């Protein structure tokens, strides 16, 4: 993998010809404007704007049925657009045939051609568009080298393992001169270990070839680890788009806050108390000083709010030594090795906290807990938007 020269600049430098990447086409940007897609008359996506920069790894993340795959398929040209436009590399491709869009796509089910060998699977697209045989061989060999498929070229897909099949599917996209790679939940059919392995390979691949990638998943770990930017989608709308860290630490609304993180964020309803320049979140049995919170608008005294705090930002004092922001009763313990998740009962509400793997909480134990005030997120209960 390290032998591949990274050449994501628009103008290919002549020096790179010795170890040129498989794709000679500069990675392209994708511009989606006011897109509307209907399936059977029902609008799945409405008035969507999305701009993917060249060379970016954009992950579309959301629950099933949120329209992320629909969006990807419309970029690929496999679905007709009802309204709006799609541009790839500055060219309007809204009504272009899939093959003319400069895209390569990898599917969840691998979608390998079962009657063709690995080699012929990868070269199918090139053979279709009449690429000279020498060039086909060169590109297939190159892709096989990148993906470690050299020994498998003569095999049929049925003789490959799941991970190998998906690598062939990636190779098939790789040999074509494309500006954008589209991934439709490519790792979902693999077991956990392979998934982690291929995830790493994908990230390395993106680093090496620098082609724009749009990646659909419902797996937040994949999204967090792979993405340059994540677009969290729900009900056909992009809820928030930004770098993984930003999405995780500063979720724009309650949906995004709840969707990312495992276990998911804890929420508590309460009111704000503004007095002497200090702002405090209050509810029965809990008070958190949120004076330093970056409010978008000045907080009002008595304003009802929803406080969100991630499990890892709750410190539990099992020895009962320190005084806490509140006290909970340990209800359930999930040891995960490196960490231990503790589910507490706090005045009838379930709260999760993530402790180090060394902690040994006992079910039924009373323990004070402290909330990292600088890590909380506050939401408006009505609109569910971040304050």
């Amino acid at each position, binding site marked *: 993998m390290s032998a591949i020269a990274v050449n994501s600049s628009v103008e290919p430098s002549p020096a790179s010809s010795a170890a040129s990447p498989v794709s000679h086409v500069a990675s392209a940007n994708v511009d989606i404007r006011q897109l509307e897609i209907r399936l059977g008359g029902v609008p799945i996506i409405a008035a969507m704007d999305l701009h993917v920069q060249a060379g970016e790894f954009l992950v579309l993340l959301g629950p099933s049925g949120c329209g992320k795959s629909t969006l990807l398929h419309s970029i690929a040209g496999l679905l007709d657009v009802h309204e709006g436009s799609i541009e790839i590399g500055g060219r309007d491709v809204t009504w272009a045939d899939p*093959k003319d869009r400069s895209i*390569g796509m990898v*599917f969840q089910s691998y979608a*390998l*051609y*079962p*009657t063709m060998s690995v080699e012929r699977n990868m070269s*199918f697209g090139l053979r*279709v568009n009449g690429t000279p045989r020498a060039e086909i061989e060169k590109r297939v060999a190159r892709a096989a080298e990148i993906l470690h498929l050299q020994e498998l070229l003569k095999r049929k897909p049925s003789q490959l393992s799941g991970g190998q099949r998906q690598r062939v599917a990636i190779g098939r996209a790789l040999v074509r001169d494309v500006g954008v790679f589209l991934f439709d939940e490519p790792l979902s059919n693999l077991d956990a270990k392979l998934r982690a392995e291929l995830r790493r390979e994908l990230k390395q691949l993106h680093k090496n070839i620098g082609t724009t990638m749009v990646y659909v998943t419902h797996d937040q770990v994949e999204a967090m680890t792979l993405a340059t930017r994540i677009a969290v989608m729900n009900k056909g709308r992009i809820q928030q788009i930004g770098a993984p860290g930003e999405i995780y630490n500063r979720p724009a609304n309650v949906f995004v806050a709840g969707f990312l993180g495992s276990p998911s964020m804890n929420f508590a309803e309460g009111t704000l108390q503004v007095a002497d320049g200090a702002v405090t979140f209050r509810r029965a049995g809990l008070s958190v000083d949120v004076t330093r919170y970056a409010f978008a608008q000045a907080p009002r005294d008595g304003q009802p709010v929803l406080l969100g705090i991630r499990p890892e930002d709750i410190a539990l004092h099992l020895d009962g030594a320190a005084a806490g922001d509140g006290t909970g009763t340990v209800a359930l313990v999930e040891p995960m090795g490196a960490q231990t998740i503790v589910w507490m009962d706090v005045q009838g509400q379930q709260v999760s906290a993530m402790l180090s793997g060394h902690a040994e909480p006992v079910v039924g134990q009373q323990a004070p807990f402290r909330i990292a005030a600088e890590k909380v997120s506050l939401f408006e209960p009505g609109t569910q938007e971040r304050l």
Partner: protein
Amino acid sequence: MSTPSPALPAAAGLPRVRSKRPPRVTPARIGVYAFLLTGAAFFLLPLYVMLVTSVKPMAEIRLGNLFALPNAWTVEPWIAAWSQACTGLDCSGIQVGFWNSVKIVLPSTVISIFFGALNGYALSFWRARGANLLFGVLMIGAFVPYQVVMFPLVRAFAAAGIFSSLPGIVLIHTIFGMPVMTLLFRNYYASVPGELFKAARIDGGGFFRIFFQLMLPMATPIIIVAVIMQVTAIWNDFILGLVFAGRDNLPMTVQLNNVINTTTGERLYNVNMAATVLTSLVPLAIYLISGRWFVRGIAAGAVKG
């Protein structure tokens, strides 16, 4: 009931109770076998009578012992049936019909399967406007009795100048095979993941390239089934061959009928039996060789309608 711990039964001193293997012979099983044997005998007995009669000389047949094995074996009736039996004034045996049937079955099977596969592929993947309606109409076509459309078809074929010709009978078989062939392939392609087709579209494949290079090779199992179904059906056809093939192309079934109905003096039962066995040999062989595939094809056609 058994526990993995070895200490337990010994320590407790309890006798180990082994569950008994159920008896192999039960009344239900005897009943099933009795029924199967009766059924097999019912269907095999006529075949036995045919085979036995076909190797007896006429002198023995006249004695009227239908089930008796022949005293003097002879292959004369078989030779006569193949190359000497008379239909009307022409006495060159049933071989003429055999080769006519081959000439009808081969192109009809290939053409009907090709278009059935093409239809099934187009209906499953390209989802043209009105595809479902078209498919529905085709299915209705499968249930229309031949007799209803026979006369209009004869008139139409006569007007087109292909009545009583080899292309005419091939076309007829292709048309009548279309609904079932389309259904067969459509159902098969419905079980193929749509992503495969999408991947081929992204790779730049057009309608025919995806069909010939991807979908047709993939359908090998169902093609075998289709060949079995079409060869059997077209070989066994009588009425279409009688009406549309014309005097020079009469298939084996029609010729068999003529052989049996042509009598000059004594009715040659042994020759008739031999001719009948010869005629049914092709479908019989296909069933015996490919029964497994045939059952699979029926199942493939039944599920996922």
